[in-house]
């Protein structure tokens, strides 16, 4: 057995990793909650954002400074893609939305592959290997920053959803599309806004990941499968569920890495995923499927 300090360090590290999972998952669950479809282009969008952050760094901008402008750019892209491609192409049928987002993910991933080949790239930032000393445990600084930024983004999202008219409209559409349309909410616009917010969250997550992680055209897939697990675990469409689920999965991965070795960490996530889907598809916080 391991000493308590080591286990505690693993748990804290898991929470830090889990924060980024939570951010990626919140974006996925928000879109699911409103549009009632799983966005299969989620991982590819994250990869694209990571490439954007990578090239921002090459141009001399630190990823953390690039987060806000990239979030805006990706909000615009997400809005446009939902409004002008996914929406019109799917003729309002869920099955078609699934296929269109799958098609988009194949396009994005393979265009990135054609443009940048499958080389793995990473960046060097001055604080890349810095640590934060808590007295009993050292934590890597990039992950602590990621954790803090995620908390801020979560608060902002909460404020947006509960305190603004747009947020109220988003929640109204999520609850009852037809009713929302009847009281004068532009449902197509809200769909696109939600999609845009999801893409913006991914852009921020990409900027948080890059200082301590690498990027290649397939990197998003690793995160998106984790995000699927988190979203299913937390309950499809539940934002608090995705936050807690993300943190939980981060800790589970960190602990199973500690006890079973790194290579089985991923497998553990998949098994949780399948188990939750089969046993309780509504997740821990979801109301009903």
């Amino acid at each position, binding site marked *: 057995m391991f000493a308590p300090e080591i286990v505690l360090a693993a748990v804290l590290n898991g929470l830090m990793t889990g924060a980024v999972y939570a951010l990626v998952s919140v974006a996925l669950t928000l879109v699911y909650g409103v549009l009632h479809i799983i966005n299969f282009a989620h991982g590819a969008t994250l990869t694209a954002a990571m490439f954007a952050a990578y090239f921002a760094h090459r141009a001399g901008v630190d990823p953390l400074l690039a987060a806000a402008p990239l979030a805006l750019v990706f909000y615009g892209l997400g809005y446009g893609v939902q409004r002008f491609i996914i929406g019109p192409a799917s003729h309002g049928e869920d099955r078609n939305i699934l296929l269109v987002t799958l098609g988009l993910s194949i396009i994005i991933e*393979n265009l990135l592959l054609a443009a940048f080949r499958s080389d793995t790239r990473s960046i060097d930032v001055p604080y890349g290997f810095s640590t934060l000393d808590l007295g009993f445990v050292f934590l890597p600084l990039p992950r602590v920053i990621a954790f803090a930024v995620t908390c801020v983004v979560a608060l902002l999202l909460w404020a947006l959803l509960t305190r603004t008219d747009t947020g109220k409209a988003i929640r109204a559409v999520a609850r009852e599309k037809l009713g929302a349309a009847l009281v004068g909410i532009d449902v197509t616009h809200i769909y696109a806004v939600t999609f845009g917010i999801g893409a913006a969250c991914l852009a921020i997550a990409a900027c948080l990941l890059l200082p301590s992680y690498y990027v290649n055209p397939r990197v998003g897939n690793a995160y998106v499968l984790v995000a699927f697990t988190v979203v299913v675990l937390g309950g499809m469409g539940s934002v608090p569920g995705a936050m807690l689920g993300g943190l939980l999965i981060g800790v589970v991965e960190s602990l199973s890495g500690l006890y079973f070795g790194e290579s089985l960490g991923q497998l553990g996530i998949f098994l949780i995923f399948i188990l939750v*889907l089969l046993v309780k598809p509504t997740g821990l916080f979801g109301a009903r499927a």
Partner: protein
Amino acid sequence: MSGSGRLAAYGPILAVAAALAMVPLLTGSNTVLNAMVTALLIGLAGQGWNILGGYGGQFSFGHAAFFGTGAYATAILQARYGVNAWAAFAAAVALGSLAGLVIGFLSFRSGLRGSYFALVTLAFAEVFRIIANATPITGAAAGTLIRLDVRPENFQFASRAVFYWIVLALVVAVLILTRMIERNRFGAWLVAIRENEDAARALGVDTLAVKLQAIGLSAAITAAAGAFYAQYFLFVDSSIAYGTWISVEALLVPIIGGLGTVFGPLVGALALHGLAEVTRLVAGRIPGIDLALYGTLLVLVVAFAPQGFQGLVRRLGAGLGMARR
């Protein structure tokens, strides 16, 4: 059933079979035959997907799970246990079908539909891939080779034409099977589930049993494609067998050709691979460019031709008919 009805139902299949069977007699080019074998192979995998996805409306994003199980089973049984190639092929189809029944039982029993079903099939394919990439019996990351020994009893032939005729025979058998399903009660139940599952159950259709039969059959057909792949290339590894590419192509060809139609997957596979060859000639071998094209095609077909190429042709024909009148 009247004789003329039967002719109308099965005549076109036989005509297409006869026409396609002529191909090796018209060309001696190995490149052409190779491309045709690959296209028919994907068509076969897509025919499997079409039973469950096209007729039953259950969209699987992980048919690689069945393709890969067929491919690995045929390779491992021969390479490790010295089983006869033809027996291994049959066993691979059965094992693929079993994988389908297990995955189907687990997910349909929990009532997974739509997005959830797509997700869980995707996850199963990924789990299979990770396991196959790590366990010794599959040869882990190195994959499994089938020993080259060109004899008919080993399911190995010097001529590509023989492989071509075998895969064509499989495709034609499934065309006939699909037409039979379309014309009997099972097919009607399947379509009822696609259109409205709750209504179908209310009318007394045993939806769980019908969906299970559909996924078992669907998986068996796709596993046959996988087993044929292993036999044709004599090699499998986890990224070929359980890779995303085959999950995507298996669903792409029926959608492009015409979802829930007998000829859809075949038409889609020939169109898709024709297009891929042309792209390769024009763009060279840039990695990923053919898949990017497939993705574009998928979005375009969903947007502009929801009934696939066949529907497009029918619509154009109807349009011309109107114009003439």
